[in-house]
């Protein structure tokens, strides 16, 4: 027993070290960006900033937090994420439920049509023309509706629903429940882990996407945070004349970029722990005895 325990402990130690190393590798870029956002221009340009701030300054955050466009785009991003995820989850649940019912006629055909969209799509210009004809350009809907259902997530959820024993739905029907009640009271609560995962997928997608906003939105008041962020980064890189930022200022464009990046990932990091809670929950245990 003792020998086993010793090798066990060595194994644990090796695991611990390896995992810690991997964790550090993942953590390093965050620390680097964070310390850049807090460092002085001279220190960044001279390459002296690694994982802790050199020449501490807070001006980058000050400037960022004074910019009204930052708050506005932050607000747009939150509206987009919340509203978009709500639309996504509603539609995906309804569709996945219908398609998971074996007695639905034409189920195979509909599934094939959905899979078709995963492989082929209209391309950028036809999609743009479609949105234009639907008068969706320059509205928040152009960011929400084209991605209302993700075929991949739909198939995931449909398969998850199919693993829920038919007999559960049957027993509910015996008690007089219709499809709405079955979906709401049985399927959704029973598949919370899947729901949480999909919600997270959709939310992260909405939070991170910028390309559709760049193409479909002209009104600067409707541009989400990622576009703001991209403008901060791209503009200093290439678009403006080199003479346009003064070498004399204390804030480096680098720290402003880093500050904007940090500010944009904080909300996602804050949401993660709450959602993660659901990943480990096993609700299905003991629901059916066969």
């Amino acid at each position, binding site marked *: 027993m003792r020998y086993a325990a010793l090798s066990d402990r060595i194994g644990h130690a090796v695991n611990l070290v390896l995992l810690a190393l991997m964790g550090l590798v993942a953590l390093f870029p965050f620390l680097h960006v964070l310390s850049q956002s807090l460092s002085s221009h001279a220190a960044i*340009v001279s390459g002296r900033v690694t994982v802790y701030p050199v020449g501490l300054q807070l001006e980058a955050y000050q400037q960022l937090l004074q910019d009204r466009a930052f708050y506005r785009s932050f607000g747009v991003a939150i509206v987009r994420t919340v509203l978009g995820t709500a639309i996504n989850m509603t539609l995906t649940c309804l569709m996945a439920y219908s398609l998971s019912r074996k007695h639905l006629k034409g189920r195979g055909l509909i599934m094939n049509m959905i899979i078709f969209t995963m492989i082929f799509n209209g391309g950028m210009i036809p999609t743009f023309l479609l949105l234009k004809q639907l008068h969706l350009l320059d509205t928040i809907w152009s960011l929400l509706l084209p991605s209302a259902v993700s075929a991949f997530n739909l198939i995931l959820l449909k398969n998850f629903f199919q693993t829920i024993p038919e007999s559960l739905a049957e027993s509910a029907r015996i008690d007089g429940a219709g499809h709405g009640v079955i979906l709401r009271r049985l399927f959704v609560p029973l598949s919370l882990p899947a729901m949480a995962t999909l919600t997270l997928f959709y939310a992260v997608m909405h939070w991170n996407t910028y390309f559709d906003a760049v193409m479909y939105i002209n009104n600067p008041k409707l541009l989400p945070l990622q576009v703001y962020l991209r403008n901060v980064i791209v503009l200093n890189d290439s678009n403006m004349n080199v003479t346009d930022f003064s070498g004399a200022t204390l804030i480096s464009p680098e720290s402003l970029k880093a500050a904007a990046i940090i500010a944009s990932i904080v909300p996602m990091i804050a949401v993660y722990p709450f959602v993660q809670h659901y990943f480990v929950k096993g609700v299905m245990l003991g629901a059916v005895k066969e």
Partner: protein
Amino acid sequence: MKRTLISILLTAALAVSALAGCSSGGGKEENGKNASPADGRPTVKAFIMGGATFPDGEDINHNPWMTMLREETGVDLQIQYGPADADEYMNKLNLMLASGDIPDLFIIPSANQSWLMDNAKLGAVMRLDGKLDRYANLKNAVYPEAWDAVTYDGGIYGVPVLADGNSATDNVYIRKDWLDKLKLDVPKTLDEFSKVAKAFKEQDPDGNGKADTLGLIAYDNMLAWSSLFGAFGVIPGYWVEKNGTLVPADIQPEMKDALAYIHQLFADKVLDNEWPITKKAAYEEKVANGKAGLYEGSWAAVRSEIQTSRQNDPKAEWIAIAPPVGPGGKQGVFGGPKYKSIIVISSQAHNVDAILKLLDWQAVPENRDKFVFGFGQYGENFMYTKKNGSIELNFENHNKYGYRQQLMFMQPKELNEQKMEALGPQFKLNDMIKLSIQYGIPNAFTGAPTPSMVENQSALDKLRQETFTKIIIGELPVSAFDDFVASYKAKGGDQIMKEVADWYAQKK
């Protein structure tokens, strides 16, 4: 049976409700879009690259400069503010053209010449020759050879716009304090340059007792250390005139000499041996943190990496010097193009005269100054202050209202010396620009990409980059240059040379 029906209905209802969402979202948008003033001024819709930030209550169409511009020119300019990134901007422009929502005026980065040619061919772009004659200021703002770049089939299809620093590119900079410390003179010839570089590397010019300084530094973009090639009169990727026609510098015997020389620098460890894997930021870092004392950098470097170097080490004294003179008496850095972007007018535009009038107005140096130094209440004591007869920009407002420079579509040919001075007299930017232009070796081919260039040039550029890198680091012998010339010609180079020769003959 009944349940199946319900399921189908449910799916159908889904589709319907999604569509209903669409139409309800659309109504709002249409109302806001058609707002335009009804005072009879010609309206011009422009689509420009975006990205700037605006003070509270302002946007690209509502700000003091736009008001001034509209009043002065009598043109109701309406700007659609596009993406900040060049590729995304071009994507969106293509979408707008395809969807029939076509701006009258748009400004494309100079890298999109072949896009311009394609669209000129399709008839999407307005042909301008003949129309420009009445606009003397506009014509005067463009270098004659720059028109070549926007010429398709004998017609002019755009207005080339100069960069802020005219056609200035790089200068060679050296640490005067290091030279003095090691009792060396300012190097003039290529051999003196390599002696100085060797001394900088080996004789501890920063006096910290460690062998941590570098000789000559370079990075993966060969144009950024073009002075070494310029000493042989050849710039990678450029065209030179020889025997009455144009030939690519890449395959000239002088290029072989240049590579042999640079390889020797590498072998002697005078050239930083990390260069093929060094990026621009890391290159500038070596200057900023006092590791390098001799390098080629942008004319604006005195306000960026050199400025940081001075902040890190107050003793650092940088001077700009003439590029090295090679064995054949040649010297120079890569010359900049005579334009950085192209103003294009759609063939659907109705108010061509209004557009040209607007551009003509902007091409006057005094009108440019209204954008640089402001005007009225946004001028003196706001954007700048006068001190001892010279003008100093107020950087807080200069940066806050940085967007105003995006409204300046044109750039007069006369260098804005006053602005360069106002950015900080200690930087001597005007001298930096003039020095760079003085030693710039221009690309002798100024036309738009020829058909086989569009097809093959990027593959040839890649081949050049790989071969030259390998020769310099000694992975290939210098004699491999001859094989490179053969395969350059075989892989489309011959055809390109023929097309360029035709272009040159026609131009003469």
